[in-house]
């Protein structure tokens, strides 16, 4: 099953300062809306307040959705799930990937390859299928989405960390430290981690952009915490039928997700390109 996981740096490009500044500001803005939104919202995100698919008005600046709920309140509440699940899944995958990758990189080459083979079993499954199967076993569970997204990311993390570890391990100073009688744990902390931290960070960036993509899609497909919980991805599918009446309940969450995914991808791309150059 070679080539399932492409190399991290393939086709990555550094971007201009203006692009990066714009992308950074956009991503930060969307995260702010997602995390601080529930504090700013005045109305309830789940209570029906009017007719379905009402046009924007003074009381409801973004109109109402398919069951007459306030779109603005749902927007302000609906980003938390997407952002936090993506962050959580990336953190989980990066942590497990780092542990497994360092382990697989430092020990015997054959056992290391075995570890990669085992996690690669997941890599042949289309990512969305992993989420769907988990959601079938654990319906309505956000944790299942988090674990699923982390599982999809894990093979990439393990491979990249293992490759970086092996590159560092063949340089002289690891052998020197070993000869000095340093413990394995000390070697990992003092000699290995500082040298692979950049690669791990760049890899986490790419994994995060993929995680945002997947969590948004999971919301759209109705996986994770069920209705009436607001979720930007699910708002698109919930309100798609009313697109001829009012476009806002679909357009606004879609716009936020597009801004977020594009800016995060640009930042991750740049991060990876810069680290690949070193």
């Amino acid at each position, binding site marked *: *099953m*070679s*080539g*399932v996981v*492409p190399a991290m740096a*393939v*086709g990555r*490009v550094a*971007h201009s300062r203006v*692009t990066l500044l714009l992308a950074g500001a956009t991503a930060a803005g969307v995260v702010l809306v997602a995390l601080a939104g529930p504090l700013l919202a005045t109305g309830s995100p789940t209570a029906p307040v009017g007719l379905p698919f009402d046009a924007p008005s003074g009381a409801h600046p973004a109109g109402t959705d398919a069951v007459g709920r306030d779109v603005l309140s749902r927007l302000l509440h609906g980003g938390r799930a997407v952002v936090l699940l993506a962050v959580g899944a990336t953190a989980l995958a990066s942590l497990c990937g780092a542990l497994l990758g360092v382990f697989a990189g430092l020990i015997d080459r054959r056992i290391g390859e075995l570890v990669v083979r085992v996690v690669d*079993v997941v890599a*042949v*499954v*289309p*990512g*969305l*299928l992993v989420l*769907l*199967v*988990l*959601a*079938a*076993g*654990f*319906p309505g569970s956000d944790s299942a989405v988090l674990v699923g997204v982390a599982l999809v990311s894990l093979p990439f993390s393990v491979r990249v960390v293992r490759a970086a570890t092996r590159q560092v391990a063949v340089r002289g100073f690891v052998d020197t430290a070993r000869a000095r009688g340093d413990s394995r744990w000390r070697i990992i902390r003092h000699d290995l981690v500082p040298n692979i931290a950049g690669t791990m960070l760049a890899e986490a960036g790419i994994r995060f*952009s993929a995680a945002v*993509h997947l969590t*948004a*899609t999971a919301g*759209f*497909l*109705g*996986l994770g915490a069920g209705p009436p919980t607001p979720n930007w*991805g699910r708002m*698109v*599918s919930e309100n*798609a039928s009313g*697109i*001829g009446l009012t*476009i806002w309940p*679909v*357009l606004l969450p*879609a716009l936020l*997700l*597009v801004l977020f*995914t*594009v800016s*995060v*991808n*640009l930042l991750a*791309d740049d991060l990876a390109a810069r680290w690949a150059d070193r």
Partner: protein
Amino acid sequence: MSLLRVAALVARRTTAAVLVLAVLSVLIFTVTEVLPGDAVGVIAGADATVSEREQLRRELGLDAHPVRRYADWAAAALRGDLGTGYVGRREVTEVLVDRLPNSLLLTTLAMALAVPLAVAIGLVAGMRAGRRTDRLVSTATLVAVGVPEFLVAALLVAVFAAGLGLLPEVSLVPLGGRPWDQPEILVLPVAALSVAALAAAARLLRASVAEIAAAPYVEAARLRGVTGLRLAVRHVLPNAVAPAVQVTAVMFAGLIGGAVVVETLFNYPGIGYELQQAVANRDVPMVQGLALATCATALVLLLIGDLAQLALSPAVRGRP
């Protein structure tokens, strides 16, 4: 390389794929039926009585030991019987046979659109690596890869269906009918599905072309005065094709995920739509069967890609 070694290699890769599928079948079964513990509670609902639950448990055969249940399920699957779905008592195999042609049509059309365009874009950008065209293409494809498929699809619907009224919003197929009887319902799903695949493949091809374009032999050809299209097509492309074939297989496997989204959004009667519906309806046997079949399809595609790359690339062929 002798024929015997080729045969041994093919056999080894195939065995590996079968083993992976076996492991995946255990994982699918465990996650959907064993780990949740109470599949009956999910099906019967919260207000079912204890005796109702017990009866349902026996009817569904859920009172047996999990290992026994897996063995029965796997043995039946090998005979081509994937069980019966809870919803509408439809046989999983029948659903598969009925929906597979629709999904294959959608993905094949998306590939037919994406691959030639990806080759052209990858070639143009890769031959101009680092220049303005390349930067433009790299950024545009990055955006297209990053935006989730359902948003691309929703945008297409908003513009071409709701806005201009040119094409249908949903791809409804009458009972017993086939999507190819009304080609207009295929346009938007195919377009939505090809965008991400096209962008992803163009990026990988661009990287591959850029690497080969920097090789000494290409420089030598350039010095001999070979330029432009001739240089790209005659000198660079042949060596970029082997990795590209595998990319295509990986991309096709990736399309399976995208198809779930696009089929759901357009109500297109394919495997992905059925799978999403089965998950929403908590129809465990249907999820298990469709997921297993999808994994098998992905594995076959990756295997074909692996072997095709082997056949096309002299460098890889030489390795044992």
